[in-house]
């Protein structure tokens, strides 16, 4: 099938046009234009289906991409050359991403029509949703880092607007500011990374970057003493850290719960945070080249574990989900770090689905109970049966229970991490990474089921809330998204083998492992045939289409020593067993604590009091950033600087000149008044007075002082002639 701009661009353009139309005319449209947003994203979804189908069925298991370029900025003049080409780049990964984004976003849009109903800014919400989604789609379609950065930032703006959606609340303002600024730190790093890459490659197209890496163009370039590849890789990864809420920039994400719940779903599942991981996946060859994978692995592992521990003590249902998002994102990053490229991406997709569902379910709960506090809920499964079922499936998925999607992807990551830490022949210290991963998995199972039990099981703790909650019926725009998403949490959609290892003989292997086959780390060696000249798009004002296979299928381990098949297998078997055990034990622990009540959770709280305090304060990250870095550091510094600028520098160094002149003037006046009048008259030594003393004439006057000056100066001149001649 021939791809042209008109077959691809609508994916982005539909929601974008919905945004434009709604932004200007939304109020005048029936239903404030929500149908337009929903319809647009659904249309995008249909277009995406087409592309996805094409990848799946027509070009199955071959590596395939479409690359279209158009010229955006052209500054060439004479022998100076500078162009920025923007383009669309679709490969297998993009196709899957597009499908996930449009699919999940469609359902979230649909859900929003129920959730936001009656809100005074109903129309505005859809404006933002459309922009948000279109930005994410644009980001995924982009063929270069600069365009990616453009949409990346626009998403930042959308998250800013959506988090601050309830702008009457002061906290919403704080949260949105925090979200934007924290991610902006990452953005600035990303920009630096782009600059670094640009300085070597000459542009930032993915294909060119891969080619440059394969040709070793990065060698020998340094930035401030470190190799440019490392610099760029680190900076790009910092972009991920900001956007995907990794330690130490994870603080914005829990606060982002200030926004309406569907927007949380969008941010946490389909768009914002996924973008960060997507970036790191795209730039995977650079990460390898820059040798920052260890940093990535550690950041991911620490994030996964820390966020999980914080989630343990949350009572707000959305906060639990928020921390679970951070934790799951940690797994993805961990996956990238340990070279589990394929699984990390798979986890991105599976997580998007079940996290979207979790949030929508939570939204459903919140909308019904008008509270977010789990201690006030309980026993809701009778009232909200569909929500309960959907949420249960998703919880099973996130907890890593076999046959569910979460297990498939997370298990692979953990297996690869285990291999990376244990078998790949590294320093054994790195074993801590898989350990953190497994620990996090245990905690995930526990806190997710804690959430389930507290919300849906047991007796209603707050009667009023319970009474208030209506019985759930099938509603098209409320329950349909939940049902679809919940159904998609089954692992079978992603992998034929439920454990991710074996095979079910019914399906052909290729069909079962479509994910594994389609998604492979860009093997940069294959770009060797490309020479640098080919990337100087000397004549790219007209569209160009490349349809050429560049990737070879490769197993998911781009990381360390892929030849060690046995070690990989070993690690995976162990990993699978361990994660199954861990997941179930987590669930059981929650069951005993919250259903059976064998033991009070307070027991653990008392036992681990310092740890509890740490986790409830979120490891003091926020206090440190805002309390110390911002308030004690930055603001004080700023105020001091501003005072220095206006109070001291301006007053003294600039206005001072006027003062100096005044001083000179005053000094001369003082000279006249004091020296001439007072001192001379009082008879203490000046030139005037010397004459007076000599001549016993006691007084002198002003005009006579003029004479003295005249004579003294005259004598001075004449005396100075000595030196001249």
């Amino acid at each position: 099938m021939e791809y042209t701009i008109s077959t691809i661009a609508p994916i982005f353009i539909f929601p974008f046009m919905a945004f434009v139309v709604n932004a200007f005319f939304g109020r005048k449209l029936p239903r404030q234009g929500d149908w337009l947003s929903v319809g647009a994203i659904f249309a995008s979804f249909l277009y995406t289906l087409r592309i996805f189908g094409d990848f799946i069925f027509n070009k199955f298991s071959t590596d395939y991409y479409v690359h279209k370029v158009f010229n955006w900025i052209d500054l060439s003049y004479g022998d100076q050359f500078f162009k920025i080409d923007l383009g669309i780049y679709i490969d297998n990964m993009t196709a899957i991403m597009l499908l996930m984004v449009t699919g999940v976003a469609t359902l979230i849009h649909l859900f929003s029509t129920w959730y936001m109903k009656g809100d005074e800014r109903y129309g505005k919400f859809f404006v933002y949703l459309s922009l948000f989604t279109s930005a994410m789609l644009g980001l995924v379609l982009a063929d270069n880092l600069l365009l990616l950065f453009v949409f990346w930032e626009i998403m930042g703006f959308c998250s800013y607007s959506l988090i601050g959606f309830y702008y009457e609340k002061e906290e919403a303002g704080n949260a949105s500011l925090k979200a934007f600024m924290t991610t902006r730190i990452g953005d600035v790093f990303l920009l630096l990374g782009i600059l670094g890459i640009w300085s070597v490659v000459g542009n930032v197209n993915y294909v060119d970057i891969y080619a440059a890496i394969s040709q070793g163009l990065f060698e020998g370039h340094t930035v401030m003493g470190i190799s440019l590849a490392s610099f760029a890789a680190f900076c790009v990864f910092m972009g991920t850290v900001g956007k995907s809420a990794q330690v130490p920039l994870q603080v914005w994400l829990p606060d982002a719960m200030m926004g309406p719940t569907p927007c949380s779903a969008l941010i946490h599942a389909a768009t914002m945070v996924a973008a960060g991981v997507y970036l790191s996946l795209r730039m995977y060859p650079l990460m390898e080249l820059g040798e920052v994978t260890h940093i990535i692995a550690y950041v991911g592992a620490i994030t996964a574990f820390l966020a999980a521990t914080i989630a343990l003590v949350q009572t707000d249902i959305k906060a639990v989900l928020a921390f679970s998002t951070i934790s799951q994102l940690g797994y993805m990053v961990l996956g990238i770090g340990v070279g589990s490229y394929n699984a990390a991406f798979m986890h991105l997709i599976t997580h998007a689905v079940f996290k979207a569902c979790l949030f929508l379910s939570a939204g459903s709960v919140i909308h019904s109970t008008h509270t977010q506090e789990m201690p006030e809920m309980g026993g809701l499964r009778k009232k909200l049966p569909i929500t309960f079922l959907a949420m249960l499936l998703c919880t099973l998925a996130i907890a890593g229970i076999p046959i569910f999607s979460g297990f498939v992807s997370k298990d692979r990551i953990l297996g690869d991490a285990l291999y990376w830490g244990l078998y790949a022949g590294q320093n054994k210290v790195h074993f801590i990474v898989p350990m953190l991963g497994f620990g996090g998995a245990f905690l995930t199972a526990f806190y997710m089921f804690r959430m389930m039990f507290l919300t849906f099981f047991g007796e209603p703790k707050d009667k009023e809330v319970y009474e208030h909650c209506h019985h759930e019926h099938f509603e098209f725009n409320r329950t349909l998204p939940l049902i679809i998403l919940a159904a998609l949490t089954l692992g079978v959609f992603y992998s034929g083998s439920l454990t991710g290892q074996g095979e079910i003989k019914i399906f052909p292997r290729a069909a079962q492992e479509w994910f594994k086959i389609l998604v492979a780390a860009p093997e940069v060696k294959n770009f060797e045939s490309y020479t640098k000249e080919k990337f100087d798009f000397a004549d790219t004002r007209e569209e160009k289409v490349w349809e050429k296979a560049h990737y070879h299928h490769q197993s998911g381990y781009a990381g360390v020593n892929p030849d060690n098949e046995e070690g990989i297998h070993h690690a995976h078997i162990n990993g699978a067993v361990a994660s199954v055990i861990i997941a179930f034990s987590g669930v059981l622990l929650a069951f005993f604590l919250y259903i059976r009540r064998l033991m009070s959770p307070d027991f653990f709280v008392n036992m681990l009091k310092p740890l509890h305090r740490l986790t409830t304060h979120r490891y003091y990250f926020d206090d440190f950033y805002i309390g110390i870095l911002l308030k004690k550091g930055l603001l004080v510094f700023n105020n001091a600087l501003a005072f220095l600028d206006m109070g001291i520098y301006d007053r003294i160094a600039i206005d001072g000149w006027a003062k100096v002149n005044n001083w000179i003037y005053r000094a001369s006046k003082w000279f006249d008044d004091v020296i001439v009048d007072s001192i001379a008259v009082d008879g203490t030594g000046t030139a005037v007075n010397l004459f007076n003393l000599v001549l016993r004439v006691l007084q002198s006057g002003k005009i006579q002082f003029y004479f003295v000056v005249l004579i003294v100066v005259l004598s001075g001149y004449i005396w100075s002639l000595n030196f001249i001649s």
Partner: protein
Amino acid sequence: MISYGSYLLISAFLFVIGLIIMMARKNIVAILLGIEFILNSAALSFVTYSKFITKNLDGHIFALFIIVIAAAEAAVGLAIIIRFFQIKETIHIDEATELRN
């Protein structure tokens, strides 16, 4: 014969004395007198040079002009001093310090 050096020396003395009078005396009329000293010292040295060195009449003529103009200046100066005396009832120079920055 008295050498021209002596004349010049006298002229210089007159000049310095005039300057000192102007700087030291408080009586305005005395200061005016100091001016006359200075002018006369110049006249003297003009005549001296004319007589002994340059041997032309320029210096003599110059001296005549100096005498005339000194008289005019003294007249004007005295007139102003009289006005000053009428207003201030003193001719002490330190009374003339109203004008200043």
